[in-house]
């Protein structure tokens, strides 16, 4: 794992560069400006979260990086190359896991592994990679199980395994733990911390959970409310790793970072519910 991260750093430290990106959707009532003037650098091995109120376009921004949508203005560079459409160099973890119900956990991960390594490697090696990815997320016991036979948290683990197995340059996560209960979410966050530390992955993650953002991130990118949302502030989180949620709960820095994010979200950019 982590071959991408071990590549020699040729051109600077940026993995992802978002330059002056804007997104306008055509609607029946004229163009709708979802995002404007978005510029962001994600460095190699960095964990960046996008946080903001619902409807602020953070998922739209992630979709631009994953290539599912194309920006109406601006440029996105991944590893110094312009992004054109989706591709397996970015591992996407969807909010609702999006596992194919007719494939086993093994089959779901293998689908991604075959896509990336299928032409170069033997069947046995592909199988090995699949098992290694499932082991990484602690799902070795459910290799042959179908998605409907495992819990929501386990499904999300398999989703993460599918994304990691491709050895992507970047991991993109769209509120990956949003649909889980609080205890399962905490456990998966801890495990994600370990996985990221072990693989040195570069991660861009969308969340609306302040604690999650502070616990996981090197940098928290806070977005203003839509329409025409943009980056309001970026907060560098300099907490030492490995991070422990129990110890951090009383850590003065942690509390301060948390306060800054809450301040931004609820004091300066509180969500105004407009009458429809």
């Amino acid at each position, binding site marked *: *794992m982590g071959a991408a991260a071990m590549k020699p750093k040729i051109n600077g430290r940026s993995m992802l560069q978002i330059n002056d990106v804007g997104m306008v959707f055509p609607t029946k009532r004229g163009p709708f400006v979802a995002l404007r003037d978005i510029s962001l650098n994600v460095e190699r091995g960095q964990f960046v979260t996008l946080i903001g109120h619902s409807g602020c376009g953070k998922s739209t921004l992630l979709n631009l990086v*994953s*290539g*599912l949508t194309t920006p109406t203005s601006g440029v996105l560079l991944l590893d110094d190359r312009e992004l054109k*459409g*989706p*591709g*397996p160099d*970015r591992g*996407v973890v*969807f909010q*609702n896991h*999006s596992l*194919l*119900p*007719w*494939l086993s956990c093994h089959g779901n991960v293998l*689908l*991604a592994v075959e*896509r990336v390594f299928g032409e170069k490697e033997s069947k046995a090696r592909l199988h090995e990679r699949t098992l*290694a990815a499932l*082991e*990484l997320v*602690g*799902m*070795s*016991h459910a290799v042959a199980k*179908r998605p*409907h036979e495992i819990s929501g948290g386990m499904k999300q683990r398999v989703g993460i395994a599918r994304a990691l197995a*491709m050895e992507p340059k970047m991991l993109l996560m769209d509120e990956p733990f949003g649909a889980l209960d609080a205890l399962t979410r905490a*456990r998966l966050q801890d*495990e994600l911390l*370990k*996985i990221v*530390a*072990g693989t040195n992955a570069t991660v861009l993650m969308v969340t609306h959970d302040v604690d999650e953002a502070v616990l996981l991130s090197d940098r928290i990118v806070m977005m203003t409310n839509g329409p025409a949302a943009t980056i309001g502030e970026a907060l560098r989180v300099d907490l030492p790793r490995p991070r422990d949620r129990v110890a951090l709960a009383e850590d003065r820095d942690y509390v301060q970072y948390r306060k800054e994010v809450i301040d931004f979200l609820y004091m300066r950019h509180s969500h105004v519910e407009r009458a429809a």
Partner: protein
Amino acid sequence: MVSAVFHSPLEASAALRAAKACAATRATGAAVVTATQAATPPAPYKEPLIDWRAIGRTVLPAVAGIGLLIGIWALATSSGGGSFPTPWATFEAAVKLFSDPFYSKGPNDQGIGWNILYSLERVGLGFGLAAIVGIPLGFLIGRFATLNSMVSPLISLLKPVSPLAWLPIGLLVFKAANPAAIWTIFICSIWPMVINTAVGVQRVPEDYLNVARVLKLSEWKIATRILLPSVMPYMLTGVRLSVGTAWLVIVAAEMLTGGVGIGFWVWDEWNNLNVAHIIIAIFVIGIVGLLLEWALMAVAKRFDYS
């Protein structure tokens, strides 16, 4: 390689239990006893060999319903003299009929087995052709919106047409009774398959297509790994409806076209005024239809992922 850093939760919990057990051993003897007691698994629940309650709930009412029907039938025909046979007379006729199902005395007098098989053959041919044309057509309609808006008014127009209205067209085109009957089956059983397949393709969840896009899967992989399995349940519902329709239509079509077949047999027995045989035919048609339905339900269950 990574397991050193990252233990599976199962391993962790097993280790925890082992540690607890050790602690218990070091404590008093009583604690050891409780620990070992906790370790022995509870006696497994034994499933009874025959679940009499379930049988009581489902089979008994069904038997009672059939019994009631036969009872009313027996009461209504008990006075005798009428042209309607009693249940017992019908049963005797059925035993005689099924004791030699595969005799053949010329084209108009063949055993009930032959009649059923000939009808099934026509249904198989008409329905098979409908599946070969209808399922791919449904895929295309589901995938391409233009084709959908082009074809759906036609389907809406043709779908409610009675099966028998198609028969003259078949006779005109094929100039023979048998192909005309198959044609009628074809045209009547194609619609459920076209419509259900198309709906299935349109309802492939966006999430699955996003997975395909993010992984940048080849068209072939998208078709075999995502579209086909996703559409399968819808397709099989269409197939089931189609077979049901085909079996409904065959009786009517054969009454008109003649030849060997269960529909024609019913008509023939009517001309002979053999009402017992007509009643037997009704039961046979019902039972064969039920068996077809069951078989397809079993196939559909295999492809249900929810």
